[in-house]
């Protein structure tokens, strides 16, 4: 079994060592450095999640990925996620196909329905329609990925008649995943449309997703498709020791979840709920390289997944903390997980 390991960021706004927020621009330049450093540290994939807020100033991740592509040779680069419901599938395909050209075939895309919803009012979409928007747009995106001229008609954008959408890729479709947060009907949709499955596990015991992984492969089979990979995306932070990692992560986690809780329906975290999530049966990967590696290995095995993407960083953390996290993840966590799984 071949396992791959990624890092994801939402462009979490950095602070300096004194706790002062850095500018959006400096945060974005830091993300470029982090992506380049991730390759040097031996990470396989670097992903950027689309967000439109002051604490996640990252609406154009593809531009940032292009800058990283120009300075790297091996690391794969993609969205994590693209909020497809409030975007035009044709434009998303064009941007990532362009990234694929710049990077020599290293582009990927993870499509999300939108659990972060700030892009809907920004671009004039009605959130009540997000299910329908996503279904139709993901269907069109699957057509665009095939590469030939596209004929398509729907409710969410202008029809396409035998339309050639450029730039063409050099070697077929680039990898495309659908991000799912726990709705089994979204798992079925990913299989029906022929996408790979990205399980976003940000709370509660990851083991409950084992049934989703099996559901995905069974659904692919039912739709006459070959097996496809499953990846796990979860938040975390790696530092020298468990105590050190928790001390850096917990106050920032409490602050950002408290901030987004009202609109996303999250509970306000307490120290107890955090300790549970950071423990062996929770969804957060916060700790020493060994603690985090063991948890990743266990969950990849239990969920029959072959890729793990750590969503690193939080608003208010320093660039130095993030670089240390990347170094430990690449040099210690990944080799340790491979060892545990071999």
């Amino acid at each position: 079994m071949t396992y791959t390991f990624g890092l994801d960021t939402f462009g979490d706004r950095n602070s300096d060592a004194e706790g002062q927020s850095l500018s959006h621009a400096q945060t974005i330049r830091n993300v470029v450095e982090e992506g380049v450093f991730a390759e040097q540290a031996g990470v396989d994939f670097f992903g950027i999640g689309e967000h439109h807020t002051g604490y996640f100033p990252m609406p154009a991740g593809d531009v940032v990925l292009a800058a990283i592509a120009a300075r790297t040779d091996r690391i794969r680069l993609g969205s994590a996620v693209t909020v497809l419901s409030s975007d035009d599938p044709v434009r998303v395909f064009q941007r990532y196909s362009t990234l694929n050209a710049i990077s020599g075939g290293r582009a990927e895309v993870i499509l999300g329905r939108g659990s972060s919803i700030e892009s809907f009012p920004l671009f004039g979409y009605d959130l009540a329609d997000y299910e329908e928007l996503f279904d139709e747009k993901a269907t069109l995106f699957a057509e665009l990925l095939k590469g030939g001229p596209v004929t398509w008609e729907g409710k969410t954008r202008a029809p396409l008649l035998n339309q050639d959408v450029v730039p063409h890729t050099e070697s077929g479709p680039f990898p495309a995943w659908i991000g799912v947060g726990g709705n089994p009907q979204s798992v079925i949709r990913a299989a029906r449309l022929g996408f790979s499955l990205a399980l976003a596990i940000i709370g509660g015991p990851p083991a409950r997703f084992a049934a989703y992984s099996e559901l995905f492969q069974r659904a692919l089979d039912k739709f006459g498709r070959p097996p496809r990979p499953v990846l796990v995306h979860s938040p975390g932070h790696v530092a020298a020791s468990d105590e050190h990692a928790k001390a850096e992560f917990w106050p920032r986690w409490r602050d950002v979840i408290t901030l987004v809780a009202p609109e996303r329906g999250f509970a306000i975290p307490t120290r107890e709920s955090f300790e549970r999530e950071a423990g062996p049966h929770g969804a957060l990967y916060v700790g020493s390289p060994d603690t985090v590696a063991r948890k990743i290995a266990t969950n990849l095995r239990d969920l029959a997944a072959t890729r793990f993407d750590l969503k690193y960083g939080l608003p208010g953390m320093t660039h130095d903390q993030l670089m240390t996290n990347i170094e430990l993840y690449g040099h210690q966590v990944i080799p340790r997980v491979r060892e545990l799984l071999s």
Partner: protein
Amino acid sequence: MSRTSTPDRLAALAEERALEATVTQPRKPSRLAVLGAGHVGPVIARLAIRAGYPVAIATSRDPEDIALITELVIPGVQPRWADDAVAGADIVVLAMPLHRFLRVDPRLLASKLVVDAMNYWPATDGVLQGLGESGSSEIVARRLAGSTVVKALNHIGYHELEDQARPAGASDRRAAGVAGDDPAAVAEIADLVDRIGYDPVRLDSLRRGRVLEAGGPVFGAVLTLPEFERAVREAAGSLA
């Protein structure tokens, strides 16, 4: 089966409970219909199946569409058309987004005991008329004038609901609120909540059930029975 909340029914229920306390033979469990197979519905269905309830699940579409989901994710559940699932049920659990519920024909649920496990999220549900003066379950109840509505299972995250369930008497058992205007209905749902793994805390009106909503003191919180009762009391005090 239609249900009413006449004094006769109350008396019968009280008698049933008294019998239960003395006789070890469990009574015939109520039949559940869970409407919604997204994040929340499958979790509630699994817990109820584990507790011995016969459970059907339905979405707005053909049950064939969710057959794989029910087989793998909710073993033991019956996938049905929504009207069949409701017709065969004593208790109907609403586990769909609130804005979807607003498209459901209230006649579908007429005369049923309905558990409102939904939450109101303005960003996705739009602005609900009358909210601000009343809680979301009161709006649900007004829409379902022919049904008996109880608010429950809305304030524990779907990702925690199974993990936190404990058998009666466990030292780390968590409490869960059950609110409604009809005491017999509240008693019946309190029994359901107890059987699936939580210490029920009864609130004698949907109005008082507002304390269970997002932003309230128990929403998403891990609380034991005394902690939960204290939180509810303090919230009531601060509103008074």
